[in-house]
């Protein structure tokens, strides 16, 4: 079996644990400590930011333009509108600055 297969299987097990684990573990406690809850709330934004920030730093004007458009559309639209606008801006900008 290749490494990729093992990554997929381990990732699937890890994901299933998160989906069943909250019920199995957290339901045993009366309430979660506020600081733990605050930490849990911060997880998605903290992880996802690390995937954007270094990419922004290494990118050029076309990519920056796309990210700015994405951020602007996010004030009004949903994830799909945001993503499509950012992608359109990226494709358009790359025609000019490569």
């Amino acid at each position: 079996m290749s490494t990729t297969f093992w990554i997929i299987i381990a990732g699937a097990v890890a994901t299933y644990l998160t989906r069943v684990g909250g019920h199995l573990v957290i339901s045993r406690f009366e309430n979660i400590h506020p600081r733990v809850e605050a930490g849990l709330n911060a997880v998605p934004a903290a992880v996802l930011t690390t995937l954007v920030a270094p990419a922004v730093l290494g990118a050029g004007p076309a990519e920056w333009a796309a990210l700015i458009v994405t951020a602007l559309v996010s004030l009004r639209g949903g994830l799909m509108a945001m993503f499509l606008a950012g992608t359109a801006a990226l494709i358009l900008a790359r025609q000019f600055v490569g």
Partner: protein
Amino acid sequence: MTAEAISESRAQSDFWDGVRLSMPVVVASAPFAVLFGALAVDNGFSVLEAFLMSAMIFGGASQMVGIELFGQHVAPWLVVLSIFAVNFRHVLYSAGIGRRIAHWPVLQQALGYFVLTDPQYAIAEARAESGRPVGFVWYMGLGLPVYVFWVIESALGAVFGKLIPDTHALGIDFLLPIYFLGLVLGFRKRPLWLPVVAASAAASIIAYKTVGSPWHVSIGAVAGVLLAVILPPHHSGVGKRP
């Protein structure tokens, strides 16, 4: 009608009620499934592997993160850990929905947790809050179409991904940062969002420049989470329920 026929027709209408609610989710997730397939191939996955990942993990953002890190030749355990980290929010959904489905047989519960995605949680929780029962048949009517379309469209995306000649002109190499930025912005109503994002961004950039990839992911994530833990609870908006 016999009692059996009545309960069967009720089960059928429950199922189709769920299917009806699943349709917007199916439509909205379709582009991401196709995109995932195309990007997976672009990052070195085979079509079968892209299909398997969608069928076994069934979590869009975590799959995107997984293939991105895989493409950067990050250590396998860190790819798995990152998938776990991105999906960690499900722990909260699980704790929430557990109260609603605790009366199901264990095998049905096990299956129910497998399809517990963001929209699945949101829609099921809304139904429970409106006072209607969250039954297994209704729940699967909602979850199954999303799952089946997700898996098929991922495989299609992977097949088409192989046919795209110039990925740079189409911007495919930079679609993931755009997608992730969209997800980050989607969480902006959460307490402490800006300080957490700022801390994670700063820490990940510094780590990227010093320690190097892939460590910037874990270091940046830990920085943001630690900040949320350390700040006094009245800033984080938890612990005081109306």
